[in-house]
């Protein structure tokens, strides 16, 4: 089952809830606020315990998005759930490396790898 929400699409598989960012650029405060208001209820209401954030559409983001990701990860961990990220392009991954957030987020090359990691951990 998949659903479209402002700025994201959500897919529910047997093993994970996959949240895919739809926009190529995520910059403005209002975009980030809107994403937060969209993603948080998905996390709160999902019966799944494994979440994947897929960035494959995203070509550019600001540091405010990193703050949003930290908020999401906090919410996920409060639910005793897991969060994986995937599809991050090399230029954006460099931002994660520079800020050292690659050390605290669980990041995979693509969706298949993120799903496989969840299956092997189950």
């Amino acid at each position, binding site marked *: 089952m998949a659903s479209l929400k402002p700025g994201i699409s959500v897919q529910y598989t047997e093993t994970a809830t996959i949240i895919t960012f739809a926009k190529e650029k995520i910059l*403005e405060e209002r975009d980030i606020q809107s994403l937060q208001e969209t993603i948080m209820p998905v996390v709160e209401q999902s019966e799944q315990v494994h979440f994947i954030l897929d960035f494959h559409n995203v070509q550019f983001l600001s*540091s405010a998005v990193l*703050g949003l990701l930290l908020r999401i990860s906090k919410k996920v961990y409060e639910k005793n759930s897991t969060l994986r990220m995937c599809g991050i392009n090399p*230029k954006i991954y460099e931002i994660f490396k520079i800020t050292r957030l690659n050390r605290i987020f669980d990041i995979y090359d693509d969706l298949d790898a993120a799903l496989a990691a969840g299956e092997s951990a189950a």
Partner: protein
Amino acid sequence: MLSKEPVGCSVVVESKSSAAEKVIGQILSKMKAQKFADDDIFALHLGLEEAFINAVKHGNKFDPAKKITITYTIRPEKAEICLADEGDGFAPGNIPDPTLGDNIYKIGGRGLFLIRSYMDEINFNEKGNCICMVKYNSNKNLKPKPEN
């Protein structure tokens, strides 16, 4: 023959996050026209967005009466951008490193760190309400080497 295209420009924009979209697009187009490397354009784009957000949020505190002046010069060898807000300024040296200790878990505080990481040179005026950033064109290989 010398180009009649101006290399520099100064633009005054409102204190809202979407206000710089047009001028940022113009700056990036000029960098592409001057054949800057893609990584340089990405880096300057990031630095510019972060500096502008800081000016809107921390400088002018979203006050619609206050403006932001963006001055830029794009030459084949380097791009220079200055952003001045109408706020009280700040001391750049007092901003904590977001990669150290528990700072890594903080929601904000990474903008200036990213600007420092991605730009080749940055300078502030004494008051701290104007930042000037330089990005050299990697394709021209003219970036000054650090002194020993």
